[in-house]
């Protein structure tokens, strides 16, 4: 294959990564933006989404499409419920103290990982894709499902943007993000907003995982990479900025794809992590973030 088509393939692969990454990172970004906490267990919510997707889809017999539809509805709901449980029993008790929250979510990370290992096992298991067709380009054929992933992710991102900027709930969330004390004074139930935002963040990660699981198998250790990449995206994009998160996800996703194809995935991750460390040091508000008030 010539260089051109090869690059095209790399960009296509990168776009799939970017699509899923944007959803996952958006979850992390929302939680940080509104609650001012870093959720280290975010990758485990992603992993739970994938593992539950396997579980739900394996329970439903018949067409893989039905199994997948059940999974994409049920898995995020269950993960959201687990996230609310964690938020109510742990994070609320420590008053969302930023440093204590990091330690606590590390604890949650270990617990979820161990439970997944105990009940799901150490095997990687696939979920069948709901659709099965190939898009034939002049140079190579490409899995149609991957294009579906890109489209589905774009729809979900638009929906999130719509909820945040055009609905009453979005307004309440933004008010809480802007100044939680004043919001509280204006009778916004900040406490409940936190629980809902934490759940939505986890559900976004879980949805992303359900989308990716027909391409990448479900495994109990799969949460590490999405967590790391989400951190990178959220920091480069500027914490709490949806637009920045999506742009950064596209940059990181595509460059990850290209560097992985032409060099090695490890080198891609090394460069991305070093980049993020330097962004944090030189421009703490992120490339697209505004200077904090």
């Amino acid at each position: 294959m010539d260089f051109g088509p090869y690059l095209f393939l790399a960009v296509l692969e990168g776009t799939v990564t970017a699509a899923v990454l944007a959803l996952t990172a958006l979850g992390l970004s929302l939680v940080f933006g509104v609650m001012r906490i870093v959720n280290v267990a975010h990758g485990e919510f992603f992993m739970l989404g994938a593992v539950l997707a396997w579980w739900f889809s394996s329970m439903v017999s018949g067409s893989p499409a039905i199994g997948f539809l059940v999974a994409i509805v049920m898995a995020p709901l269950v993960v959201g419920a687990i996230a609310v449980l964690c938020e109510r029993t742990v994070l609320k008790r420590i008053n969302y103290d930023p440093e204590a929250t990091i330690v606590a979510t590390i604890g949650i990370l270990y617990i979820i990982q161990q439970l997944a290992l105990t009940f799901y096992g150490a095997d990687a298991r696939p979920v069948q894709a709901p659709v099965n067709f190939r898009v034939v380009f002049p140079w190579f054929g490409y899995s149609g499902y991957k294009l579906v992933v890109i489209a589905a992710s774009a729809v979900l991102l638009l929906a999130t943007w719509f909820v945040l900027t055009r609905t009453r709930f979005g307004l309440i969330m933004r008010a809480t993000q802007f100044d939680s004390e004043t919001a509280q004074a204006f009778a916004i139930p900040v406490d409940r907003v936190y629980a809902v935002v934490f759940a939505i963040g986890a559900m976004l990660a879980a949805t992303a995982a359900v989308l990716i699981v027909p391409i990448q198998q479900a495994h109990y250790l799969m949460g590490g990479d999405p967590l790391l990449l989400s951190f990178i995206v959220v920091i480069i994009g500027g914490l709490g900025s949806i637009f920045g998160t999506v742009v950064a996800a596209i940059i990181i996703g595509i460059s990850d794809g290209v560097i992985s194809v032409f060099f090695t995935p490890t080198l891609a991750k090394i460069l991305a992590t070093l980049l993020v460390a330097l962004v944090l040091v030189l421009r703490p508000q992120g490339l697209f973030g505004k200077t904090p008030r």
Partner: protein
Amino acid sequence: MSAGDTMAAHGATRRGLFDKALLLHLAVLAVLFGLQFVIGEYQHLSLARVMVLATYAVGYNILFGYTGLLSLGHAMFFAAGLYGAGIGASQFGLGVQESFIAGVFSGLVLSTVIGLIALRTTGVAFMIVTMMFAQACYLLTLYFGEYTRGDEGIVLKGDIRQMVMFGYPFDLTSPVVRYNIAFGLLAVCVLICLALVRSPTGRVLVAIRENEERAGMLGYDTFRTKLFALVVSGTMSAAAGAAYALLFAYVGASFASIQYSILPLLWVLLGGIGTVLGPVVGTLLMFYLVDYASEYTSAYMLVVGVALLILVVWFPKGLLGTLRERVIAWLP
């Protein structure tokens, strides 16, 4: 998460012959030294391991407990020592002492470089920057698998396990030698830590932890002091790593992974943030807790996770921190 204001309460430390704090630490070290005559072969090995890891925790605590900087990337310093010593011994044919020095020196260089960059950030950003650098270091050990042999790791064997010191030969495969070297390292580091936190510099570290702006206003160069703390902490962690490589003859990428950044945090939280002996107590308890739990269940991560949650929700000051608050206020 500050370790409490009791540090300030006992501002003037009593010195001289009846120095309670120093005597207490010497007594604890003496007990650790004496233990080797009562315990069995298997315990020799575990305790040697615990003491090396406790050294790591003591190093971590200097930055986290006394300076108030929570690093999520200390595994890179531990690994710098580990690989500095391991590669020095296996690729360059250095002797045991030279390898150890190579390991410590790698940690010194790495912590200085990382400190100069990472200390420009504070709070949550500092945690994430250190975590990112540690992750980059972990990936580098995989990337340069040709030299580090990645996940598989390097096994040190043969002549590397023998050393000559003060004209006497020592066999590092002997449990007694290993126990005493590990003990020596821990003792030196505990005493360095004790001396540091009771020195004027140590007081500045605590001042930075409690209120960095105020410390800066009082005329202390907080950046330089923080850098000093990070370098001491990183170098001590590297010394633990180098000793680990040489004593237990294995160098692998898993020691550079995020898990080895979390473990010292856990040990310090359990034992007591900002106490000299806390990390030692924490490491010892956690090691045996996991050891004991693994007889009943393989769910080792569950134990760690639940311990972290319990600590952070109910005992943010850890064992010795709570003890200091309630009973012995003079504990350094």
